[in-house]
């Protein structure tokens, strides 16, 4: 049965990767439904997400929201990444549709800036969408994973798993470029703090604040939401200056700026499993990475299991 779901997901991933956003939305949902059936960490993800929602948004329908968060998580991990890869490899990038960007342009300062947000639905598309609006941003990717090492974009993509990543980021920022990164993406040992998010303690990595201080540049927080008409909208939230205060204070202002959009669209925010589950968060993230790698391998290596004659004909085409 697992093979059937994998087969369906592999077919749908390929289809969704070629459709405009307005059409791909439903197909992406089908991908998520297929993968949800076979994702080994579904139960734990849902449990911890429900826990996070109950702690931070009491009264919200935790069961339903957690299911939607997981669905968005799967779409973001398995469909959006293909779109980012298409963008980076110069293929037609169908999901460039975006609402009015004048507010976005006005929010970008001159010179270096760290554009940052937390894990939300479609977050992987955000730097590509910014580039699509003519805003030059360096991508900070967690690791090479499905995107691979794209030589064409050397200098435009920095991998946070690279020990020289902070230095490369500082170079980019001091050269006047903007960098897009998640608030927890620079994760050095021992530079952490407990901040407040939606009235509850939240574990925070302070690496991004360290970077802003060293580069003497502001942090621009943004959210990304899908509007009812299907278009994606990037919304600037706040410009946070690190000057003259402690790193913890800077990061608290970043966290605070994210509270309103989380409360408004909780199903879109994928970080419940990190922020809401305390000590279990890092372990689950690590497990999810392993599971996702295995599922991606299954998806990319899947081949049509038709009659041998058909398969050889397809292979020779």
């Amino acid at each position, binding site marked *: 049965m697992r093979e059937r779901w994998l087969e369906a997901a592999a077919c749908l991933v390929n289809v969704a990767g070629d459709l405009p956003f307005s059409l791909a939305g439903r197909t992406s949902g089908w991908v998520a439904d297929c993968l949800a059936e076979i994702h080994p960490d579904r139960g734990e993800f849902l449990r911890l997400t429900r826990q996070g929602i109950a702690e931070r948004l009491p009264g919200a329908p935790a069961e339903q929201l957690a299911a939607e968060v997981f669905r968005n998580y799967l779409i973001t991990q398995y469909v959006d990444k293909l779109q980012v890869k298409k963008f980076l490899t110069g293929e037609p990038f169908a999901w460039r549709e975006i609402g009015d960007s004048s507010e976005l342009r006005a929010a970008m300062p001159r010179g270096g800036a760290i554009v940052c947000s937390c894990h939300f639905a479609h977050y992987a598309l955000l730097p590509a969408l910014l580039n699509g609006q003519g805003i030059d941003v360096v991508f900070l990717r967690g690791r090479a994973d499905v995107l691979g090492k794209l030589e064409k974009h050397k200098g435009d993509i920095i991998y946070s798993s*690279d020990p020289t990543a902070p230095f490369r980021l500082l170079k980019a920022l001091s050269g006047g470029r903007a960098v897009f990164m998640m608030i927890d993406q620079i994760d050095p040992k021992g530079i952490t703090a407990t901040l407040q998010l939606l009235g509850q303690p939240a574990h925070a990595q302070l690496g991004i604040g360290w970077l802003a201080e*060293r580069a003497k540049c502001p942090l621009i927080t943004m959210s990304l939401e899908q509007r009812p008409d299907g278009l994606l909208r990037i919304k600037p939230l706040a410009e946070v200056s690190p000057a003259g205060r402690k790193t913890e204070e800077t990061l608290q202002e970043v966290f605070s700026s994210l509270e309103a959009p989380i409360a408004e669209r909780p199903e879109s925010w994928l970080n419940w499993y990190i922020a809401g589950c305390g000590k279990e968060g890092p372990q689950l993230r690590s497990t999810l990475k392993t599971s996702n790698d295995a599922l991606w391998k299954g998806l990319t290596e899947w081949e049509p299991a038709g009659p041998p004659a058909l398969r050889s004909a397809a292979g020779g085409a």
Partner: protein
Amino acid sequence: MGARRPSGAAFGCGRSLGMADREELVNCVYEAIAQTVGVDRQTLTPETTVVSLGIDSLKFSEVLMQIEETTGLLADDAFLDKAATIATLGDLSALILGLQEASAAAPKTQGAAL
């Protein structure tokens, strides 16, 4: 830092180095590490590992910034690709020496492409 040079000085000017200059460049590297990490320079050897000094990615970036400032050499992507895989201080020194030599072969380059 001991024999500290002014910013943008000396090693990045595209000239070939004699033995004494090479030793001074290596000393600059070790001084930068000692100052950034907060250890006695005399305890550092070519065999000292980056891990044993507790140098994480943020510390490493501070080390590289310090080296740039005191040597006048500029780290570029090609250098950083190699620097990402070093294990010991000897590795780092060799990398910087080798690339300083490369910069000497390209004297018209602004600064030195590490």
